[in-house]
């Protein structure tokens, strides 16, 4: 009966390797769009998707190394990604990030 468990364990290892390879390929494709993209908004969209892919890569590395210490990184990347994207969008729209209406 232990043979089946060994088989499924190695199946998980193989699928984690396949997932890491797939996420890396998609990171390369998005990097091409980030460098080439015709306008700055294209670059912003590609950078947003790159952040989401890095979160997925951190989750896969947490499985591969069998540790829970990487899980903080996922939350941190998510929060920084949201704030950075909102700031970048305001900069692309108005040219400033923090507006002062007082004067």
């Amino acid at each position: 009966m232990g043979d089946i468990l060994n088989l499924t364990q190695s199946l998980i290892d193989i699928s984690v390797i396949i997932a890491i390879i797939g996420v890396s390929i998609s990171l390369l494709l998005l990097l091409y769009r980030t460098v080439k993209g015709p306008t700055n908004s294209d670059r912003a969209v590609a950078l947003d998707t790159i952040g989401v892919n890095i979160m997925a890569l951190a989750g896969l590395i947490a499985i591969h190394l069998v540790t829970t210490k990487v899980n903080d990184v996922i939350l941190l990347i998510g929060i920084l990604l949201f704030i950075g994207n909102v700031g970048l969008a305001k900069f692309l729209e108005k040219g400033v990030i923090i507006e002062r209406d007082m004067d």
Partner: protein
Amino acid sequence: MLLLSGIWINAVLDILICLCLLFGTFFIVSTALGVLRFPDVYTRLHAATKSSTLGITGILIGAFLFMYVEHGIVSGKLLLGILFILLTAPVTGHVLGRSAYYSRVPLSDKSVEDEYKSNLEKVKEH
């Protein structure tokens, strides 16, 4: 191994983890292909927000099940990451699309109708 006693249940859960990971990888690769191949900022935004949300949900659910089944660790941070992505990805998409429209990024040649423009003119008239 620690929590669920039957070996068969364990094997089935392992296969479920594999399926979750491969599902998420498929959707993340299709996100990259969509961002690379679509003709326009707005269609690229459509590809970037929806399918990447689904892909990272699959991968993080796979990681959560792996931690729970193999080692008995309930890691709430992974579930919190899924919740956070589900909350913030539509907001990011809306804000980026709005800023792209107001900085006058043109639509692609194949797009048929610009409803937002006619709505803005209607609002200006009143």
